[in-house]
């Protein structure tokens, strides 16, 4: 029998924010990369690299924050392979991104061998005093680990950077029309490499959030498509930072809901519930890219196109 009463909406809403945070982190990074005109399909590879480096460092130092830092560095480092391939060696971005994902999955499995079954140091939850004690709102909003808030601050920072700072305008110019940006004297390649590294750091953080806080454990291939969902989320958001939050929390909701339905003994086999996040992602992609919605998509003009300054 279905026991829906076992699903507590407050717990659900609180879990939703936690489930959404890894894809939110990865997606906001990829948004910046795509705003600079680069399509990096290696998000999954960078996330899993971050997941394993963060986990390893956190276990060895017994400090989750050092682990998160290491994950950001690890994600950025591996993203530089992609940066060199596409920006220096002028390689195809789609193929290079795929290569990064394939390599990252193998590399992380190799690094993570000794860490299977180990439990990481706990990341403490923040205490907001009386706010945390509030009924309903307290558990939903004010009883999380710091990374939930960091991810939201990061979105705000990206939003501010892209819209109100000089650097952000240069980045957008490079992404919209790299020839014009180059003619204006901006260093297209440097801007893009920096954006790629930022995207890598964010994806790394997202991965480490999975292995250190959400799961928390290390298993091979544990990102299970989160990187690809993050890529879809950027399309969903129409390249707007706040919409990434909306999308991520929507997906977080679906993930948590299907997990709860599994636990409640819903009569559909577990496997069919588990495929729902992927199916919903596809559905959202279809809705966003079809018909009228497409006109408002506003993909960066130079997205995915290689730039080679001749002369």
């Amino acid at each position, binding site marked *: 029998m279905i026991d829906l009463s076992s699903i507590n909406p407050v717990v659900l809403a609180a879990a939703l924010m936690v489930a959404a945070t890894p894809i939110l982190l990865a997606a906001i990074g990829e948004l910046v990369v795509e705003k600079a005109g680069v399509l990096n*399909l290696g998000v999954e590879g960078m996330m899993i690299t971050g997941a394993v480096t963060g986990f390893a460092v956190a276990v060895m130092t017994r400090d989750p924050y050092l682990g998160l830092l290491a994950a950001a560095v690890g994600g950025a480092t591996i993203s530089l*392979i992609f940066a*060199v*391939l596409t920006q220096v*060696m*002028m*390689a*195809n971005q*789609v*193929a*290079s991104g*795929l*290569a990064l994902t*394939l*390599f*990252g*999955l*193998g*590399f992380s*499995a*190799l690094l993570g*061998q000794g860490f299977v079954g180990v439990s990481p140091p706990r990341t403490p939850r923040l205490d907001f005093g009386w706010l945390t004690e509030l009924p309903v709102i307290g558990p939903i909003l004010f009883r999380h680990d710091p990374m939930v808030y960091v991810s939201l601050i990061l979105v705000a920072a990206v939003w501010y950077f892209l819209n109100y700072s000089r650097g952000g305008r240069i980045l957008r110019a490079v992404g919209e029309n790299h020839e014009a940006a180059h003619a204006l004297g901006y260093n297209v390649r440097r801007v893009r490499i920096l954006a790629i590294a930022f995207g890598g750091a964010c994806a790394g953080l997202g991965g480490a959030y999975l292995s250190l806080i959400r799961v928390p454990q290390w298993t*091979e291939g544990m990102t*299970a*498509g989160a990187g*690809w*969902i993050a*890529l*879809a989320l950027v*399309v969903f958001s129409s390249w707007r930072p706040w919409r990434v939050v909306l999308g991520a929390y929507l997906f977080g909701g679906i993930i948590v809901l299907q997990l709860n339905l599994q636990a409640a003994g819903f009569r559909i*086999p577990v*496997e*069919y519930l*588990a*495929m729902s996040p*992927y*199916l919903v*992602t*596809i559905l959202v*992609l*279809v809705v966003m*890219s*079809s*018909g009228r919605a*497409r006109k408002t998509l506003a993909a960066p003009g130079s997205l995915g196109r290689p730039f*080679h300054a*001749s002369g």
Partner: protein
Amino acid sequence: MLRLEKRPQPSAAWGWATPVLAVALTMVAGGILFAALGKDPFAAIKMIFWDPLFNPQFASYSRPQLLVKAGPLILIAVGLAIGFRAGIWNIGAEGQYIIGALCGAAVALAFFPSPGWYIFPLMVLAGAFGGWAWAMIPAILKTRFNTNEILVSLLLVYVAEKILAAMATGRMRNPDGAGFPGSRNIAQYPAASNPELIANSGMHWGVVTAFIAVIFAYILLHKHILGYQVQLAGQAPRAARFAGVAPARLVVLCLGLSGALAGLAGLFEVAGPARMISIDFNVGYGFTAIIVAFLGRLHPVGIVLAGLLMALTYIGGELAQFMLGLPSASIQVFQGMLLFFLLAFDVLSNYRIRFARAEAA
């Protein structure tokens, strides 16, 4: 300062040389990796590339495995390469491979234990159909709703994996299997099995199909108008449209073809080497085939060579795992590095490297 100068035409000589160079450098980088893991790099490289073929102790087992592993890789990669040439990115071959296997196995299990001669041919049709149908999802979403086929085809891999798990533990579970997950042994069901055709050669119907697909793809790409259209659509999409190439038709065709071939690969695998539907039936051939397609320069003949080489790394990797205790993931890293080097060296076929004077900024 080094400077890149775009070649008017990609260099044909470098086109052939870069895969060789990439393989050589991957061996060096792989050697460094193995050394870092505390293994003798020379022994490991020899174990991966030489011993499976020529060491009398292992060759009798390993040599047939070469075709067993290369068959599905080549079959999938040939289909992918046609799409990649046209700029149509089917990266969900792994999912199409699973669905093809499931459809083929469904036919076999439905007829069990009847002995009809028509069962295996029906399975082949079902396998191709399954892969084709799974690839039609991204194709139709792309042509109807302009949805990105890269993301959709990839996301469908995860969906296919879940269906596989549901089938292996549910509908297709062996009723005589004492409750263990996994289907009946299809390879032991004579009317449905895909046996080794020549003893100790590794040759089975999937390998035969792979070689037929290679010949077919060669003719299609190099002798047929469609191959020209594919090339044109990939290199100059606008010009292709003026030349009367219907982009939607090309998407449906390329995705459908690669899907059907991936589905066939899955079917031959499940009725042959894999023997049955199980939760861990898929081992990543669909993803490795992407590397094979690039390593083979998207050329059917190149893909045969690349497929054999990648098969060798699988077999040699297993051997090194067994004999030297090399972690299984290191072969995946090895394959990933190969793709990196390959993409990096492509710069040599598309660009000329010039030494520029400092003033030219």
